[in-house]
């Protein structure tokens, strides 16, 4: 038995790794630039120039905090044209622009020259200060406007890749520079940029894009850091410390958010599993015992209809009927506790008593679908058992109907319903997304929806990974239960 459990856990490990990989792939393909979001949400209002410098520092800080300055994976399949060091460019748009340039022209040397001259031009015009004597002749605001435009265009140039766009921007910047004579000192730097761009086009080596190459990066990569952390500097690692990273919305650690939210979700899923088993087993057994009888027919029909009922419809209907001031206002429509919260020093039972009316409707919605499913499974497996020879023997011995059903049949009929346990558990978590958001329960489900609406990817990935993990555990538990209930099963 122990050997079997150990073996099962060993099989889980590769599955778990693939789940983390899947979550990781989704997170790195997420649209938008996380660094940009982090910086813009914690921006300070400084002066234009000062701000852009501090913004750059901030970008660098968040980049290394989120681990985006590392290569993505242990290795990658790239082309001969692609350099190993492209990941070091932390601006997502610039990186993409360079990638596209490479895929178009295939000569990294030239592109690198172009890019560094462009950066130099950008830096140069940031520190460029015109002679104040020369400035006096012109309208100050117009000059400032021109300078800003040059700045804007040249930083936009870094993120552009289509030749028509680049050429248009080149012309525009040239015109802007030549509009004032004192800007002419910017000219040579920009001429270099232009020249370098033309030499990219001239010396293109597209063939390099069609030669594959595998680049190895070693352990210094995003995935490795995500799993194992970087020694506690920015991330402790998911595997041993459960560190899922930082929320894009609140800048809190994800693990803290989950810890504060998972309580109600667990409460509801436990409650629903318990209720579902408590109600469905007697119904299934009773229906099977009098197969074809009135109870069987009616319960089968009702269960089938319940089974096909969308949970969000039932939830909306329930709210519409029982929590509507126009119809019946018996129960509150949303939340899990009064708006004012619990009274101070309330014990757990008092809290439950206060929350009870809030819990009724969500609990019904949580329970009914797994309850319908379980009853149907129970009925089918019980019917199979009732037709077995040993049940007939038991009846022939003269045992009472109840004893035959509950003592001899029931235990054996439990088998399929236990395997189902593995499916009920994750379903309670996955299904909670809808119900929690309808009833505004502060749990994992509404947090997931909130994360999706705000593109908070670390949260989404965390939910995905945790639920995958829980499902695996559910399978393990159901396997062990199976072994306990049925001694015939051997795990060799």
């Amino acid at each position, binding site marked *: 038995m122990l050997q079997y459990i150990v073996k099962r856990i060993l099989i889980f490990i*590769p599955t778990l790794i693939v789940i983390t990989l899947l979550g990781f792939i989704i997170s790195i393909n997420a649209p938008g630039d996380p660094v940009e979001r982090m910086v813009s949400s914690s921006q300070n209002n400084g002066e234009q120039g000062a701000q852009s410098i501090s913004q750059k520092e901030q970008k660098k800080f968040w980049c290394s905090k989120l681990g985006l300055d590392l290569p993505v994976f242990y290795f990658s399949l790239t082309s001969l044209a692609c350099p190993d060091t492209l990941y070091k460019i932390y601006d997502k748009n610039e990186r993409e622009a360079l990638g596209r340039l490479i*895929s178009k022209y295939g000569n990294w040397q030239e592109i690198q020259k172009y890019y560094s001259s462009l950066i130099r031009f950008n830096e140069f015009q940031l520190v460029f200060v015109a002679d104040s004597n020369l400035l006096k002749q012109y309208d100050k605001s117009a000059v400032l406007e021109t300078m800003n435009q040059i700045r804007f265009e040249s930083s936009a140039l870094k993120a552009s890749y289509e030749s028509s766009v680049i050429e248009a921007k080149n012309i525009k910047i040239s015109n802007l520079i030549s509009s004032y004579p004192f800007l002419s000192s910017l000219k040579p730097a920009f001429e270099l940029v232009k020249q370098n761009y033309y030499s990219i086009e001239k010396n293109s080596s597209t063939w390099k894009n069609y030669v594959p190459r595998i680049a190895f990066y070693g352990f210094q990569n995003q995935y490795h850091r995500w799993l194992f952390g970087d020694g506690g500097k920015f991330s402790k690692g998911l595997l041993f410390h459960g560190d899922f990273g930082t929320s894009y919305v609140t800048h809190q650690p994800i693990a803290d958010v989950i810890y504060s939210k998972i309580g109600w979700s667990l409460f509801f899923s436990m409650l629903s599993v318990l209720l579902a088993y408590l109600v469905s087993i007697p119904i299934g057994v009773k229906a099977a015992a009098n197969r074809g009888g009135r109870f069987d027919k009616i319960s089968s029909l009702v269960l089938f209809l319940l089974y096909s009922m969308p949970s969000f419809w039932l939830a909306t209907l329930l709210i519409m009927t029982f929590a509507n001031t126009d119809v019946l206002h018996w129960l509150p429509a949303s939340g899990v506790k009064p708006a004012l919260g619990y009274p101070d020093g309330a014990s757990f039972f008092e809290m439950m008593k206060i929350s009870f009316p809030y819990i009724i409707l969500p609990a019904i919605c949580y329970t009914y679908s797994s309850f319908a499913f379980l009853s149907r499974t129970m009925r089918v497996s019980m019917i199979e058992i009732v037709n077995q020879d040993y049940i007939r023997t038991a009846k022939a011995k003269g045992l009472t109907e109840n004893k035959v059903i509950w003592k001899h049949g029931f235990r054996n009929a439990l088998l399929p319903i236990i395997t189902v346990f593995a499916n009920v558990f994750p379903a309670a978590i996955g299904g909670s997304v809808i119900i929690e958001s309808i009833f505004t329960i502060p749990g994992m489900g509404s947090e997931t929806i909130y994360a999706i609406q705000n593109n908070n990817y670390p949260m989404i990935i965390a939910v995905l990974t945790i639920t995958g993990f829980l499902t695996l555990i559910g399978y393990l538990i159901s396997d062990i239960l199976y072994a306990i209930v049925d001694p015939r099963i051997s795990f060799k």
Partner: protein
Amino acid sequence: MEEKKSHIENEKIELGSEKDFSFRKYAWRQFKKNKLAYYSFRILIFLIILSVISPVIATDEPLYCKYKGVNMFPAFSLFNKCEIKNVDGSSEIIQYDITDWKRLDATTIIFAPVAYAANKTDYDNADYVSPGGGQVFKDKEGKLLKMPIKFRHWLGTGKAGEDVLSGLINGTRISLSIGILSMLIASFLGIFLGAMAGYFGDHKLQTTRGSFWTMAIGLLMAYYYGFSVRYYNIIDGFATSGIAVLFQLLISILIFLSVLYLFYMLGKRVGEISFLSTPVFIPVDSIVSRIIEILISMPLLILIISISAIAKERSIINLMVIIGLTSWTGIARLTRAEFLRISNLEYIQAAKSMGFKEYRIIFRHALPNALAPALVAIAFGVASAILIESSLSFLGIGVPPETITWGALLSAGREQYSAWWLVVFPGLAIFLTVTIYNLLGEGLRDALDPRLKK
């Protein structure tokens, strides 16, 4: 006499069908015996027809209109406008989608049965007018009249005056097409992978060492030339439209397959070299089973939500592909189990001994006998795909916001609980469709499984 003859003929036909007893006929007869399943099958066909003709029966453009002596068929027309020459030589252009047909001075005009489009609003009946409530109609002079029966909102209106019935009819198309097309993808994947896993197992697909490694490199290469090199093309496709994505993906898959084929041919040659010709087995079953295990350990709804969260463009096609790619596991498991059983049967052995090619045995001889359980799983799968789509629309994540689906209609009802018709009717539509597919699945299961024969 006539009657008697036909009676005899009927008997003959029945006897005949007993003679050339085919499983398909038997299953169909069994299926027809199950009244509930049979009626849901007929309702399903009705729904499919409804969804195909929905652009014509629920639209504000009239089916036929005679205006100033010109005949027009706006609802059927592929063009959006019609130019009308007046007597004095000036011309008037009627643009179909923005013309106010209900107040047009037409000689004859025939409206669709539901004379409203799903995405257009009736401002006179805005702000939740109930199905039985006092609906009004503004005539040409701007006078408010009682609503004429042919323009009634039979199922009420939404907040901005959207017709609920029209939304329901047009939503049928989206729900059914997502359900059916996503399951089409899932069935292809599930049946193919399940068949491979079940038929070959871990120790039957034999190849040479040289061929194996060539194919391994070939897979990498095929991926490289098909997808890595064309990475930006595919991304740009995603940014443009669903059709562009499909086109780009199709090209990529073609490149992928042809590179793979090249390496397959190469592998055959490499396998002839003496030290590379050692036979190896490809553990198809283990690979497929692992993939299934991984997919089923992910909660489908959350997986689909996270994938659709990163898709740049929200589109129905994206949703179909995502649902299809994630929900094939049930079909694959059943097909695999069935193939495990069938591959040991005598007629397969016979086919092998006759020297038939493997793919011919799999697809011509084994597959038709293994399809029954998969068919049941597909019927249930369509039901759950429709549920997933409507849940996503209900949450406002799946389809583009301007698309009108059942889930989106239902979600609009949550803003105003007194507008019960916005909650009840779309929910009923989802519920009915899901029930129909579930009943169909049950009926199929009973009909196709001879073990349940009484």
